[in-house]
């Protein structure tokens, strides 16, 4: 009973916060409304016994949304929403398409004869997940790892305007490197120790 109450409060809260994302004028508020939606949608995961994945979603979403807030403020014309302006196109069409999608999916959810539940959750679901990722689902883990690595590389390549020739000079010999924001670590000693920057 208590679980059902928590579920419904969180479900309605998640949907309301999700709607608020596209309704509020302030970009900071929109970002944190999205965060609220994610956190509230993660609570049902905890109710299902997925404690690790639920907390992981919360942990990741907080970090992601704070970074997102920084980008929002950086790129939006009107970040604080002090002068409300419309930043939408084809509102009616989008509304119709999304409402239609919801109706079709909801009808499907209610009409489909879902399979019966088979088996019970293992005593330690987190352990089962880890074992699956390191055993039967190793391929998934490999793809995730490679995908994240490729993402890191390509995101830096896309977004970083300066390459190593800008930093180390045409013959790559300039030490310390010419950086707009100098760091603390002496590049020369790092080069000696780790071979970084060669």
């Amino acid at each position, binding site marked *: 009973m208590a679980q059902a109450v928590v579920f419904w409060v969180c479900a309605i809260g998640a949907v309301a916060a999700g709607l608020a994302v596209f309704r509020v004028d*302030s970009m*900071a*508020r929109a970002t*944190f409304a999205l*965060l609220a939606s994610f956190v509230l949608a993660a609570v049902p995961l905890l109710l299902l016994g997925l*404690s*690790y994945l639920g*907390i*992981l979603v*919360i*942990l990741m979403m*907080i*970090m992601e*949304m*704070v*970074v997102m*807030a*920084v980008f929002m403020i950086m790129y939006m014309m009107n970040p*604080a929403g*002090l002068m409300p302006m419309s930043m939408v196109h084809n509102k009616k069409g989008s509304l119709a398409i999304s409402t239609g999608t919801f109706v079709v999916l909801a009808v499907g959810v209610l009409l489909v004869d879902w399979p019966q539940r088979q088996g019970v959750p293992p005593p*330690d679901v*987190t352990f089962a997940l880890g074992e699956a990722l390191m055993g039967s689902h190793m391929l998934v883990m490999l793809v995730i790892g490679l995908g994240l690595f490729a993402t890191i590389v390509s995101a830096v390549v896309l977004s970083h305007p300066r390459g190593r020739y800008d930093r180390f000079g045409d013959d790559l010999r300039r030490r310390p490197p010419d950086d707009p*924001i*100098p*760091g*603390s*670590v002496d590049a020369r000693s*790092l080069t000696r120790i*780790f071979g*970084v920057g060669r």
Partner: protein
Amino acid sequence: MNAVSQGPTWTVLLVPVLLGVLALCGAAFARVLDARADGRGISGGVLAAPLAESGRLLLQQRRAVVASDRLLARTGVVLVPVAAVLAALVVPLGDRTASDLSIGIVWFNAMEVVTWAALWMAGWGSNSVWGLLGGYRFVVQGLSYELPHMFALITVATGAGSLRVSDAVAAQESLWFVVWMPVAFVAFLLSALALSFSGPFDTATGRDIVGGVLAEYSGVDRLLLVAGRWLMLSAAAAMSVPLFLGGSGGPLLPGWLWTLVKAVAVLGLLVWVRSRTATLRMDRFAEFGWLVLIPLTLLQALVVAVVVVGMTGGM
């Protein structure tokens, strides 16, 4: 040493009280160090200064800048101390813990990350350039300390073979983790200072930006932020006990007293470092974190993983 078990429900109420006392002790010790550095005598007034300051802030009127984002500001300000208390829920005292979650270590990490959002919201919401600068500075700092912090926690979880804090305590019965995970311990202590934006990592509230996140806050709001910072530091110090220092293990004294003694010792060390070091610019810390701390903590995790695999005989 007895195994850690789930305490009765009312122990949850004990957590904020104990954490508050620990935070007050830490703040008082910081005042003592400041008084000594200034060449003043140590009197009762110095010791009671944090309490007196809290009382003064409680009575002080709150003010707010025109067009400040009240909703985000209030949420952020309240979240800082709340996150600290929630993070401390999984810390066992002696052989009892308020909530022995199966993923306690991840829980601590998630609650501590709440500070990111909270400080940024508080900085943004105050509608002041200093507050916003402070919020941004904390995010930069967060990106630098968070990964070493996570790798330190992962190292402990690897050594314990579990994400449950009580299992981590049980795994240290013969040998404390600090002995064979010294790098992770140091990284954890550094991140404890950084995540409570104090000591060398206090750029978010730096004097050069007239108090940063704290600039526009007064009265209860300011009290919550400052108290939240001390609660967070205390929570991290208390958490280092079950993670690295063998929990309640120790001769003669009862377990709960050992936990307290160790927590106070770690907190004292952190406060001492906080008082004796100059502020570290966040861009310098960013490079140090990514080029030195992350490789070192990764190596530490690798060493621990190899030892664990070796001791358990392969699979």
